[in-house]
């Protein structure tokens, strides 16, 4: 086994070696090691060899479980299954055209991901990546160049072969469309086809997380054909390399798919799938209870209470970076004083919020957007807990013992309830919060980041509010857009040269130690200065009837059914 370990060490790139050494020296947990190693393109066998050499088990929970390619077998089932049949899935109605490059809503993410695929696929844990259209990816020494070996024998639904030219064209299109995940990471000519089965991507700067940006965690990075024109929609031109072919699409009712018999992953156990569109979660739940749908792409704790008590319902729960930010204006107004922001944050009873809003299905937050699931998260920063006396003392020191403020929020999921709970918690310290619950249109347009004034962005934001953030595989978007000086979503108007420097350091860092060090600084700064309160990161919830198995979900509204089958 040690020979295998040495073999791995000798054959890895410097970045991969850094991760191996970090794990060997105990600086990474096994889970973190598997995650980081997979991102950096270490093979399943290599990961297993390292873990075994370091005294860990190579049984379940190792790279095998994390890296199993989708569709390899229906072996996710430990129960007997039958071939054939179909499944009905409840999903949010797409809010715009199903254009894979420009789509922005969960309904479209879920429906397009049935047909198109990513270079890096979602693994069955729901939070990591594995082989997709790329079977291997390798960074250079400083993470500025990534080489992707493409899967061979893949065909588009019209029978044409999938080649490197498709990947190169897709990258160009994404850059031209201003894809948020790839902006500033690659340029229009960054991707080059070395040959039909190899793509080399030269980044604008080192980035140790690049594979995440060409995975389902960047939902628009689906690979589209070389001759695809931006603006084309899936229903106008059904296409893809995936396990399912689009048969019908009706914006009013739903979409149906049939098995792709030429799929590289083999024959799917199910023959067909149907996605039924819903506007709200309540009818999805009753549709499941009435046995008219078999699975839900997403639901929340409050609407789906009946599902938790249903012994025939299998909940797919994924810990995710989904969170709410309670922004406070740092440039003017009552919250410009750091002591006032800290005081408000000290009134949050986070365990109570998690229990009341999510029945415990969330992780505690510490007033920064670095989710505990990120491999570079530093848990040593002291956890802020409710401390009413300290909050009162800070307010008195700041000269605002009886603070009153309007708390703006949009009517989305549990956010109105969160606002009410924060109001009652803040009242204990003498802070009066007037809850202003608004429709999402009004909230985003008037309270969060109004269009005017344009410069700096978001400078028209209200003094205090709650905004939602979806899951991201890396925190770059949260840090860049919401917290960096003049960020496009910087509703707190936070402008800290120290933070900006730490974020820049994080962006450039590619080794484990460098990323962790940069994150430690970021967490410390944000926890101290509190431009945003982050009380929790809540789990993504999806689920299906137990008559089906082999279903897994991302935290961004995608349900993967290539391994799904009916139980016997």
């Amino acid at each position, binding site marked *: 086994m040690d020979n295998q370990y040495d073999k791995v060490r000798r054959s890895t790139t410097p970045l991969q070696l850094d991760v191996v050494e970090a794990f060997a020296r105990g600086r990474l947990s096994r889970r973190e090691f598997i995650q980081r190693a997979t991102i950096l393109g270490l093979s399943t066998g290599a990961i297993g060899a390292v873990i075994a050499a370091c005294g860990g088990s190579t049984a379940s929970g190792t790279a095998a479980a994390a890296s199993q390619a989708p569709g390899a077998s229906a072996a996710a089932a430990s129960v007997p299954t039958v071939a054939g049949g179909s499944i009905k899935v409840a999903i949010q109605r797409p809010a715009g055209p199903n254009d894979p490059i420009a789509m*922005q809503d969960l309904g479209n993410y879920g429906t397009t991901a049935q047909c198109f695929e990513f270079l890096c696929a979602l693994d069955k844990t729901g939070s990591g990546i594995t082989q997709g259209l790329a079977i291997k990816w390798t960074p250079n020494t400083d993470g500025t160049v990534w080489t992707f070996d493409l899967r061979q024998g893949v065909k588009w639904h019209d029978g044409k072969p999938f080649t490197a030219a498709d990947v190169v064209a897709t990258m160009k299109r994404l850059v031209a469309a201003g894809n948020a995940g790839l902006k500033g990471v690659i340029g229009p000519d960054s991707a080059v086809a070395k040959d039909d089965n190899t793509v080399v991507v030269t980044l604008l700067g080192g980035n140790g997380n690049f594979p995440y940006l060409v995975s389902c965690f960047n939902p628009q990075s689906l690979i589209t054909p070389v001759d695809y024109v931006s603006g084309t929609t899936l229903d106008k031109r059904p296409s893809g390399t995936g396990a399912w072919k689009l048969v019908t699409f009706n*914006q009013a009712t739903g979409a149906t798919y049939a098995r792709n018999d030429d799929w590289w992953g083999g024959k799917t156990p199910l023959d067909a799938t149907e996605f039924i569109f819903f506007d709200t979660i309540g009818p999805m739940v*009753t*549709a499941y209870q009435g046995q008219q749908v078999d699975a839900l792409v997403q639901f929340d704790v409050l609407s789906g209470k009946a599902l938790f008590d249903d012994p025939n319902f299998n909940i797919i729960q994924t810990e995710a970076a989904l969170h709410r930010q309670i922004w406070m204006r740092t440039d003017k107004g009552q919250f410009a004083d750091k002591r006032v922001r800290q005081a408000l944050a000290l009134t949050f009873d986070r365990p109570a919020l998690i229990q009341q809003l999510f029945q415990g299905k969330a992780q505690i937050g510490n007033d920064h957007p670095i989710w505990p699931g990120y491999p570079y998260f530093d848990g040593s920063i002291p956890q802020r807990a409710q401390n009413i006396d300290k909050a009162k003392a800070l307010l008195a020191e700041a000269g605002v013992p009886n603070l009153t403020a309007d708390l703006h929020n949009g009517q989305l999921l549990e956010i109105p309830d969160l606002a009410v709970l924060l109001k009652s918690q803040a009242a204990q310290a003498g802070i009066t919060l007037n809850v202003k619950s608004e429709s999402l249109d009004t909230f*985003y*347009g008037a309270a969060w980041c109004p269009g005017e004034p344009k410069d700096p962005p978001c400078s028209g934001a209200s003094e205090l509010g709650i905004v939602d953030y979806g899951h991201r595989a890396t925190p770059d978007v949260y840090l860049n857009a919401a917290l960096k000086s003049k960020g496009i979503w910087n509703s707190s108007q936070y402008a800290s040269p120290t933070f900006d420097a730490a974020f820049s350091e994080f962006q450039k860092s590619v080794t484990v130690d460098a990323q962790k060090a940069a994150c430690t600084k970021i967490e410390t700064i944000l926890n101290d200065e509190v431009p945003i309160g982050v009380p929790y990161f809540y789990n993504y919830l999806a689920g299906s009837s137990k008559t089906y198995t082999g279903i897994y979900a991302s935290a961004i509204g995608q349900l993967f059914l290539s391994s799904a089958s009916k139980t016997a």
Partner: protein
Amino acid sequence: MGRYILRRLLLSLVTLWLLVTIVFAIANVLPNDVGRTILGPFAPQESVDALNDRLGTNRPIFIRYADTVVGVVTLDFGDSYITNKPVLPDLMAAVARSAKLAGLALFLTIPVAIIAGLYAARRRDRLADRAIVLAGVTSSSIPEFVTGTILVVVVGVQLKLLPVLATPPPNADIPTQIRYLLMPATAMAIVYFGYIARMTRAGTIDVLQSDYTRTAAMKGLTTSQTMRRHVLRNALIPTVAVIAVQIGYLFGGIIAVEKIFNYNGMGQTMLFAAQRKDIPTLVAGAIIIGIVYMVATLASDLIIAWMNPRIRLDSNS
């Protein structure tokens, strides 16, 4: 009669124009950014600006209004901002869905309500009358979404007798479609039973007390002959008018029922269009609902004119 119909049609055109103008004003004058609403709050500003350019939403308002009016006249409502597809086919599909649901609801409620109203009127102040009035008041006091929710939970979820979703499978036969629509139609029928039954009862009581009804009885006509020849056609005039107004509401106003049963009729379609600032769909939908109202009220006026010749004579003079 011909002049009457022509006059009503001309007035309808004026009403339609007013409707288009009001809907356009509401959709365009209030603060909004169509591109931002479609792409969402996290889309890059460049994408939003590009979309607004493509949709033409940043053109002067008078040009957009003129385009809208021309589109209505030529029945070319343009493409939906959401789907990028022509508005009319999707809207007509939604109208068809609403028509099926409304038709079934009216089929369930009208005969039962009229019979109940007549029965109650002939037994005025007796137990049957009080029971029917009480049932009517109760049923019309409970909102249809409450009735719908109870039906979903009891009939759909617990007893599993009927599907909880109202949309039938594609190409379903008529019995299957009726099975899927039965619950939402019943929820609506329960509410409208009260209105129609009470209106029928009131109209019948009024006619039963009239001189010509007493004359008919004194002439020797049987009760059923009196009811058929003299009472019914006069008693049902207000009922016909109420039903006509309800038809328009059934097409566009039952959003709550459509939401509960996940049925994409005109209500949901219009709500979605309003939330997403899909102005072409909003304008076209408002026109269609307006036309439904006008056709329904015109039809009711014609039926009433047929039932009561004095109305025809008055309009001709």
